[in-house]
């Protein structure tokens, strides 16, 4: 049996330890804010925090999440500075990738509260947005960080 914390609540899981965290969150806990985009860790749509670090839910097995604390987009409840900046900049178009973008950006700012352009490039390049909202993402990250655009 695997025990972990999801958005503060303790959870027990008795299924296949190789099951990716993404599908556990989406299908067993019905936390569908975390999205499927590629299943190979290539697009970032499934980004969540495990022990405070941004990881790809599709590449994180339940076995490797054992004993850890998982935070998903649902736990941010619209109050996170990154979410507020996202709304102020009207970032989303279709919005599908934005949960992952926001979780990635939140982890970046935790690690680097005043990121440079290079920091933003490095941290966000794993998150694909097919609508092409990248320049607003960059702007919103800077707004959330309180650095000049």
């Amino acid at each position, binding site marked *: 049996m695997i025990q972990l914390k999801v958005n503060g609540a303790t959870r027990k899981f008795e*299924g*296949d330890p190789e*099951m*990716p965290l993404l*599908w556990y969150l*989406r*299908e*067993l806990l019905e*936390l*569908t*804010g*975390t*999205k*499927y*985009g*590629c*299943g*190979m860790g*290539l*697009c970032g*749509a499934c980004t969540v925090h495990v022990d405070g670090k941004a990881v790809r839910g599709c590449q994180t097995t339940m076995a490797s999440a054992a004993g850890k604390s998982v935070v*998903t*987009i*649902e736990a*941010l*409840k*619209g109050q996170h500075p990154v*979410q507020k900046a*996202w*709304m102020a900049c*009207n*970032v*989303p*178009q*279709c*919005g*599908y*990738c*934005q*949960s992952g973008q*926001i979780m990635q950006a939140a982890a970046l700012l935790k690690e680097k509260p005043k990121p440079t352009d290079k920091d*933003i*490039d490095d941290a*966000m*390049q*794993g*998150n*694909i*947005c*097919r*609508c*092409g*909202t*990248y*320049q*607003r*993402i*960059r702007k919103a990250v800077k707004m959330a960080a309180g650095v000049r655009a």
Partner: protein
Amino acid sequence: MSENTLHVVERRAFLKYTFGAGALILGTHVEAFASSADTAVFHPSVYLGIEPNGTVILIAHRSEMGTGSKSTLPMIMADELEADWKRVKVEQAIGDEKYGSQNTDGSCSIRDFVEIIRTAAASARTMLEQAAAQKWNVPAAECQAKNHFVVHTKSNKKAGFGELATAASKLPMPDKKSLKLKTDSEFRYINKNVPVVDQQDLCEGKGVFGLDAKMPNMLVASIEHSPVYGGTLVSFDAAETKKVPGVRDVVTIDRFKPPHNFQPLGGVAVLADTYWAALQGRKKLKVEWNLGPNASYDSDRYRDSLVAAAKQPGKIVRTQGNVEAGFASAAKIHEASYSTPLLSHAPMEPPAAVAEFKNGKVVCHAATQNPQAVQETVAGALGIDKKDVTCHVTLLGGGFGRKSKPDYVAEAALLSKKVGRPVKVIWSREDDIRTDFYHSTAGMYVKAGLDAGGKPTSWLHRSVFPSIGTTFDEKAEYAMDLEMGMGWNDLPFDIPNHQAENGPAKNHIRIGWLRAVANVYHAFAIHSFVDELAHLAGKDPVEYALSLIGPGRKIEMNPVGMKYWNHNQDQKTFPVDTARLRNVIDLVAQKSNWANRAKGGNGHGWGFAAHRSFLTYVAVATEVKVEGGRVRIPNMHIAVDAGKTYNEDRVLAQFEGAGVFGTSIAMMSEISVKDGKVQQSNFHNYNVARLPEAPETVHVHLIKSDAPAAGVGEPGVPPIPPSIANAIFAATGKRLRDLPLRKGLRA
């Protein structure tokens, strides 16, 4: 729906149930599935209703895939109605022909519906004012709707919309000619940067997409399709699959009957309690296919054959003057061949839908651009009436044309019928990229006869590509009118001898429309060639392009030996107007400081292209820095005349996004096929622009215009690839004539 005839009809003439007496509906007829606008006490149009508590229900009948149309159309209605946006409920419509076309495609949501919905909302507002006038016994002209109330200033009386709704519903529909539409200065929401209705949900992970839709007791399916288009199932062995925990069933779906239209491809479906279990089961499936005649398809060889075919005479699809005579008398000839690859849409949400077949009827929830096509396709697949298909439309995680083709929804419905439970179908990313309706590959040849000053007197453009028409007629070998009229045979250049020819192309894969469609390859060839001619003539590319376009004028396209499609609009209302094209070129030159740009060389340069598509005029100036095989795009300027706009921030966003989408097409995206099998499968080998590869800043410059609203979602894309190719030439001296450019740059 083009004739927006307003007429009052008794509800009960159309409906046997649900509604109270005396209320009104407008327009056609109401189907069996009522929206809550239909059941509102006052619903003078299929698009809106007002409840007694004052809630205004506005129907979003177009799909939301990121353009904002789900919000913009209701916002226009709320504005015209003088409703308070905070008291508006926007409801996504099910598929129903009473709304007119719901095919969210072709960049036409605003232009096709703005007049209809403004008229509907103005009628409702007028009726509310009249109801108040009757109530207070004052002239209607003295009553004015204002922010969810009707006020009579003289007597200081005020009544809410809800309070007036029942009385308004008993009034006759006002004559359309008597309606007074708001002026631009009176707008509350239009162009006021009001966030889209789903914005907060999207930022909090609460938006419900097709992937998130669910039904009680559903199974989740993953489907193995033939790896080659048109292959048929020989046999399969599911013994190991069925041992996987959570797998409940393995069933087949019949192969489509040609033409494939939007029918399911056919295959073997693994149904399980979860998608994860279905995927595990699918890995253990043993399937044998008869791959059929397309198993020898090789996209590289095919592309070469298109380029070769474009060097041969084809079917004439536009002709003016005499190109051969023009070439014979030219001071100089320049010719070049261009090619572009197959592309996959790759929306971030792969195709997904859930459906339940029960008692001869289907209810489904789907990420679809076209819920009426869902009704037709599902009905066709199951042999039921389309009226017995209810399609609820979820949010779409991108569409780009893929999700107007509902094969995946029909799969879900067929599977539900087979297993007797609701079934959700999710295409994996691999399914999506390997089995798409691909953007067509093209081979093009352009030849110009030039006068002593380097200006063309004769222009020949041959284009050869497999047509979207093969979706509906598998034997089609020539282009459809709409493909030809996308920036190719409607080229507005001032050249006396001009001919366009189309060669035949047999197809071997599903071809579909992708954002901006045939404009993409035509614009790439044409505007690259124009840049080549400018350099040959030793002229500035912008000045040179202006000289080709010639003076500002409206060009009637039909007399030049072609049937011009003009994006389904008449040329009187939406002429090909070179004055507007010149304007956007002037604007982009000014905003990008074109005259003082880095002159090129040393890996730093600027490129330009301007193109009319979807009735919108777009000019682009792009700055590139080429470092080895890597291209950075520090700045991209896009000047746009899309006629009148209604949600300026979303218009800007569409062009910002087009800059990125166009960069993917220009630089890195390519689908290749060997032995009939698509070689790419996921984002490691189907490349799309990531943040550092995208333009750092796309500066969008909108021309304020009173011309009728034109397209916004697509027209930004076509001029991007040639502007980048031309910038790379300026930066490096390398003329790249084949997409994606990165391949040639690294060669």
